[in-house]
């Protein structure tokens, strides 16, 4: 769809009582006991298991990929009668230079978990468009099937929506067959209205997912921002019939947090969005906490640090 035909979709809008709602979402929709265990296992299948550090090496990546394949200890899954469900994380997410390592490790482990690569000058996006596009192409060549691109925040802050649309179109083209996940870096967009507009434009330009943050900003995935993005996704679906995915990332560390995110998506978009094709959680340490909670649910004890394998 061309942007100028759809300009009214990005009309002026204000967001009022979102804070009120978000304060209640955790309290209103808690799940306990076996409901909690089942929800946590479901959350595992949404995780993009991520490592984005300067000190990533091939052995780190190998360990990460193994953890992605076996996210929860086999005996715990057996106790829950879930061992035959093939529970893995949704993807692994790495820097472009580590894509080769990840593809190799996953192949060795004999599984088809997709490899996601960040790109386009992650995390700031402050490099030339030419190199940003080249970065996407190289990651795809190395075997990444999902590309997490960052948008150019300066275009949002100066109101150059057409230019933003055109850039994301070019990202889309560079991705080819790979899925395009567009990071809005909402912590740097200034207002909820900007978040809504940027979400709409990212979806119109052909993103498969919209993602909250890089995890490197000072403010990352927050509920008010998420609700605005989820409502943009719903509005887009009502207008076009296309379901676009949602990926919160950054700062989601505890099992309890992940439950709140699941219920938020369930409340705002409904059960049909609760599948890995439409919902991801970007996280690195979250998985360990979920495994600890499952351990406690199964055994009634709290796990020691060495009881569970690291990721």
């Amino acid at each position, binding site marked *: 769809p061309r942007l100028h035909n759809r300009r009214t979709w990005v009309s002026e*809008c*204000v*967001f*009022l*009582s*979102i*804070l*009120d*709602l978000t304060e*209640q979402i955790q*309290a*209103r*929709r*808690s*799940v*306990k*006991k*076996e*409901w909690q*265990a*089942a*929800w946590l*296992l*479901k959350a595992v299948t949404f995780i993009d298991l991520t490592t984005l550090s300067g000190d990533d090496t091939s052995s780190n990546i190998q360990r990460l990929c193994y953890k992605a394949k076996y996210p929860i200890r086999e*005996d715990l899954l057996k*106790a*829950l*009668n*879930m061992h035959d*469900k093939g529970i893995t994380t949704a993807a692994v997410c790495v820097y472009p230079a580590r894509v080769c390592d990840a593809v190799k490790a996953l192949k060795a482990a004999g599984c088809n978990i997709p490899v996601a690569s960040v790109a386009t000058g992650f995390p700031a996006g402050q490099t030339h468009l030419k190199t940003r596009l080249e970065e996407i192409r190289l990651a795809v060549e190395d075997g990444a099937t999902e590309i997490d691109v960052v948008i150019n925040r300066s275009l949002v802050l100066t109101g150059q929506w057409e230019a933003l649309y055109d850039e994301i179109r070019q990202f889309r083209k560079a991705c080819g067959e790979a899925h395009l996940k567009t990071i809005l870096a909402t912590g740097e967009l200034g*207002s*909820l*209205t900007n978040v809504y507009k940027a979400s709409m434009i990212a979806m119109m330009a052909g993103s498969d997912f919209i993602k909250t943050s890089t995890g490197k900003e000072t403010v990352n995935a927050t509920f008010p921002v998420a*609700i605005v993005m989820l*409502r943009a996704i719903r509005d887009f679906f009502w207008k076009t019939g296309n379901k676009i995915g949602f990926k919160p990332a950054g700062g989601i560390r505890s099992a309890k947090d992940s439950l709140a995110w*699941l*219920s938020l998506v*369930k*409340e705002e978009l409904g*059960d049909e969005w*609760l599948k890995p094709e439409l919902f991801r959680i970007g996280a690195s340490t979250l998985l360990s906490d979920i495994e600890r909670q499952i351990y406690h*649910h*199964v*055994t*009634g*004890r709290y796990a020691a640090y060495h009881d569970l394998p690291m990721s």
Partner: protein
Amino acid sequence: MAATRAGPRAREIFTSLEYGPVPESHACALAWLDTQDRCLGHYVNGKWLKPEHRNSVPCQDPITGENLASCLQAQAEDVAAAVEAARMAFKSWSVHPGIVRAQHLTRLAKVIQKHQRLLWTLESLVTGRAVREVRDGDVQLAQQLLHYHAIQASTQEEALAGWEPMGVIGLILPPTFSFLEMMWRICPALAVGCTVVALVPPASPTPLLLAQLSGELGPFPGILNVISGPASLVPVLASQPGIQKVAFCGALEEGRALRRSLAGECAELGLALGMESLLLLTDTADLDSAVEGVVDAAWSDRGPGGLRLLIQESVWDEAMRRLQERMGRLRSGRGLDGAVDMGARGAAACDLVQHFVREAQSQELNYDTLASLFPQPAGWAEIGPSPAPPYGLFVGGRFQAPGARSSRPIQDSSGNLHGYVAEGGAKDIRGAVEAAHQAFPGWAGQSPGARAALLWALAAALERRKSTLASRLERQGVELKAAEAEVELSARRLRAWGARAQAQGHTLQVAGLRGPVLRLREPLGVLAVVCPDGWPLLAFVSLLAPALAYGNTVVVVPSTACPLLALEVCQDMATLFPAGLANVVTGDRDHLTRCLALHQDVQAMWYFGSAQGSQFVEWASAGNLKPVWVSRGCPRAWDQEAEGAGPELGLRAARTKALWLPMGD
């Protein structure tokens, strides 16, 4: 590896991703009921009152129907005992300095905090309301309220200098009410030094628990007394001689009946009727957030009186689509489940809904049952027609001949004829009210500054007319010096109210909400004023000035003995004021009062006259439930600042509207 504890259902839930129950234990509420042997009486003067030979009603879990306790129903003598206890407590509670009451209220807030789990569990168990709502809303807000009013009490000596606590307040609560609603009414009463007797519907243990917590605090056990009983006790409580004010919350018709039965009694009456909220949804709104607000207000457990939602046509479809979608996700269930949006409402709420429906079906009202109380005055027909009365009625900005074409003679203090004034009747009142209504939108829309300017202009005109006015007063037996002083004081009053209206603009409050709250002082509408007989100029001006300053338009009945002074002022108003702003109707005061009090389109009425007249005005006000201010035959010192121009007049001349301005981002 420890033994497996996992249930068999995880597999299914993994696929369906359904929510599960999040039950809260109600053991502490049952334990408290056990301390009363599952039999609740009343709480009076710091003690449980469980008289013998009383009927009892069961207090049930609205979901399971399980009997939780039996509650004794009060009889008239139990009510009398509670009022007596409150009256005794008032003697010590009211004389303490505000800071002592502030400390006591703060301690009560702490006790509520200490027992908050018991409070929210009991409230949720008995009423079926969602526990989250009670726990995160009511109980927390109740503590904030107590702290707020404690602070108010501590500054009372300065902030409310010259005001006195009324005495014992009789609080009547509707069949369904929230813990918080009760606190809204109890806290301010206690803070200023009043004591409270609350009549709660049968099987409401939470107020009793609150009274117990308050009573066990020590030095002031009788300040809060709770009686549990049927609605038939409402008139009994209201007519107890020790009660100074009745605060009634409930249905419109019951309030109307209470207004009539309390007419002329010494107890003041405050009415909170219907309590419906209004929500406007315009096309500039963020529809999703607005829908969230609607659902919160209407289908969670907040608004007992219901909600009226008005949607702008251009966003109707979008708003309804979102509303229906949101409603589809609403979860209801047991109140003590932590994850429901809406608890069970119980049988009483169901009855209330049906009551509203019935009420809507029978909108016909009967005003005439007590009309014989205040008969048509005899004698006004005796006054013969006068060929050329010098003064007409001042209606719609000019002097007009009265409908009856008759006039009445006015005598001066020595018994000589002073002049003729028109004899107004029902039709003249009708015309005056119509004229006032036509002028109202324009006047209410004026800025306070413009209103002040007009009052100042009238003050200047009054000073120019000083010698005429003073000589008129002199003929009524006022000494020249005093007469001149009265004219000067009248002009000062006009200026003072103009200045006050300008200075006391609308205020901005910072509340715990997102976005500021505007506190608006809005005019009442068409205000009818019946002036006292004494102080023919000063009382007239002292009443006119605040009424106009706050944006009302008025229909005034001036002093019967000497209406000429008011009519002199009308000559200036005719040139200065917009037509219909102030209308002055002379004639038989009782007859005109009757016409105004029974007028359904007069929004408020002030009456300064006999006790019998006051009783009638109160009774008749039940028709459209207009706020009335009556003197009950007590004289007022109009030349004193406190009584003639005190803040009370300003408070009576306008009403407060709170406007929340939610903000984005």
